[in-house]
């Protein structure tokens, strides 16, 4: 229980640090948010009014404390760009981002587990060479470039494949949430789901490839390490087939390093949504973040950065719990 409290305190401290840093960056560095909102030739009075409205007439420390007090009450201020509460903008757009991340993680996990289990099971030089080569390539090229490659290929060779947006606005579907993919699945609208997947598959794959490669590398070498252990030989004498041994004996033991790396790389993947959403014109919080930056929408930037930070920290925290689930040696002695 005390450990839980400690890690909660640690989250709080890190979030506080993030908020101070982002606040400091946004206020201390030149750049005038009010100027962006003013019509040309606005009077000083209009300007002063706006400054008061957004609290920019107070000192930075005061501004920070006011903002922090509001945040604690889940009030992130008002987006100067959308003229809506920041929380509303974020909640409206978060589902698109989460679905993208979820799909990308699924693709990455599926690719990585299939490939590394295949490589260790087959054990042939050719399979090893091909899988190592592919994962090396997928890891070296960042998601941003994979997206460009996909866009290029689609434009040149697959003109029917969509590369922009989440769905075709002409065949608008009725959805009661913004989790389109999940909702279409839950309500068993498979045709709508397939149509949505056509839009989601490219951005998700671009995001997934580097992660898939990272997981493959660690998982494969950890599996190889596990397969060289004595308990594997003992399992062989018990009549188990190689595939059974890979899945039943080695996989569990290979999980801890894999989880460690995956959690680090998953944060890269989530950070990557910022660009991928922009490249594929997806209405998530990532593309909102970029337009917020370009339009000097300070409250929205702050809110989005805090959400990202929270997600990152939660991932790191849950990976710690997952280690213990995977490896009994890391559990507390009973």
């Amino acid at each position, binding site marked *: 229980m005390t450990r839980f409290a400690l890690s909660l305190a640690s989250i709080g401290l890190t979030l506080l640090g993030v908020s101070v840093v982002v606040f400091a960056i946004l206020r201390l560095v030149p750049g005038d948010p009010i100027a962006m909102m003013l019509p040309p030739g606005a009077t000083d009075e209009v300007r002063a009014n706006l400054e008061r409205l957004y609290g920019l007439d107070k000192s930075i420390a005061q501004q920070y404390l006011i903002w922090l007090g509001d945040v604690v009450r889940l009030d992130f201020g008002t987006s100067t760009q959308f003229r809506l509460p920041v929380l509303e903008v974020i909640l409206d757009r978060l589902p698109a981002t989460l679905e993208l991340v979820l799909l990308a993680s699924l693709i990455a996990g599926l690719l990585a587990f299939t490939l590394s289990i295949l490589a260790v099971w087959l054990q042939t030089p050719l399979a090893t*060479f091909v899988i190592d080569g592919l994962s090396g390539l997928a890891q070296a090229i960042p998601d941003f470039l994979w997206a460009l490659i996909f866009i290029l290929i689609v434009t040149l060779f697959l003109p029917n494949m969509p590369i922009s947006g989440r769905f075709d606005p002409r065949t608008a579907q009725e959805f009661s949430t913004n989790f389109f993919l999940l909702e279409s699945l839950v309500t068993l609208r498979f045709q709508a789901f397939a149509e949505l997947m056509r839009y989601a598959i490219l951005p998700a794959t671009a995001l997934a490839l580097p992660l898939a490669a990272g997981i493959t590398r660690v998982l494969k*070498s950890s599996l190889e390490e596990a397969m060289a252990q004595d308990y594997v030989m003992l399992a062989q004498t018990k009549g188990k087939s190689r595939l059974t041994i890979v899945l039943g004996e080695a996989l569990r033991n290979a999980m801890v390093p894999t989880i460690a790396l995956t959690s680090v790389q998953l944060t890269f993947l989530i950070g990557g949504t910022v660009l991928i959403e922009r490249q594929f014109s997806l209405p998530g919080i990532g593309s909102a973040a970029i337009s917020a930056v370009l339009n000097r929408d300070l409250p929205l930037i702050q809110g989005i950065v805090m959400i990202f930070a929270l997600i990152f920290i939660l991932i790191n925290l849950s990976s710690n719990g997952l280690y213990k689930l995977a490896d009994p040696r890391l559990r507390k002695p009973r």
Partner: protein
Amino acid sequence: MSDVERFALSKETGTGSGLERSAESVSRLRLIFGGLVLGLLLIAALFAPQIALHDPTLDDLFLINMPPAWLNSDPGYYGIDNPWAYPLGTDSLGRDVASRLIHGARVAVIVGVSVACLAATFGVILGAVSGFYGGWIDAIIGRIVDVWLAFPPVLLSIILVALLGTTLTSVIIVVAVIDWTRFARVVRADVLQQRSRDYIDAARITGGSDFSILTREVLPNILPLLVTLFFFEIGIAIVVETILSFVSLSVSSGAVTWGDMIAEGRRVLNEAWWVMTFPVAALILTILALNATGDALRYYLDPVLRK
């Protein structure tokens, strides 16, 4: 950094184990490929004005979106005799793609190398300080690293560049400020490990300073990993520069960058695919070469990997 993370990090940057048998020959191939591409890149960067056939910023309204030479069936239409005067075609303002590519290599090399040097210096110093002095200094630096890792790096660099202004210098500083943690983590972990060994105590007793321990024990040990990270960092910096151009935060007007070319090419992709394709290809080739060189050098520098 926990053991698990250390392990993951070593795996993350390690060479694939499946190729161990032929590690020697693979490393040689990597070095040849990497050296070749990076050599070309350097030559392009150094002698861009001499090599390039045209002024990379010169518009020509008669030459808009001209395809690459081998696809150019009707050069007369564009009012030129020899399509090979514009080997990779022209962009939507009639500028020579090949010349822009060559000049873009300049910015790529400058950004990449400066960022990697800055980030490595920052990271090694902070990591070493953190590892040697421990206590509250370590706690503070560790907390800073935590906060840093809680930011999406791309978003942070976009924010910082947007606010600092889109100059070459600010791009370099921003990327270095964001990426120093990569080096700091490695150095700190190794300092801690080395410090726990007996011979470091012996060196201390005989009057070795922290600095001499750093240069004599720690750095040689992690040099292979640092070299690899250094090359990775060059690639990361070049990509981030491209990304900034892509979200219309391009390095100030005048300089030609691959990022500008890609951003522009993306807009005219349907009419002129070559404007985006060649800089993307150049970028991918550069990154692969940097990775290959980093991995190969690590193999040659690390006695453990070579056995």
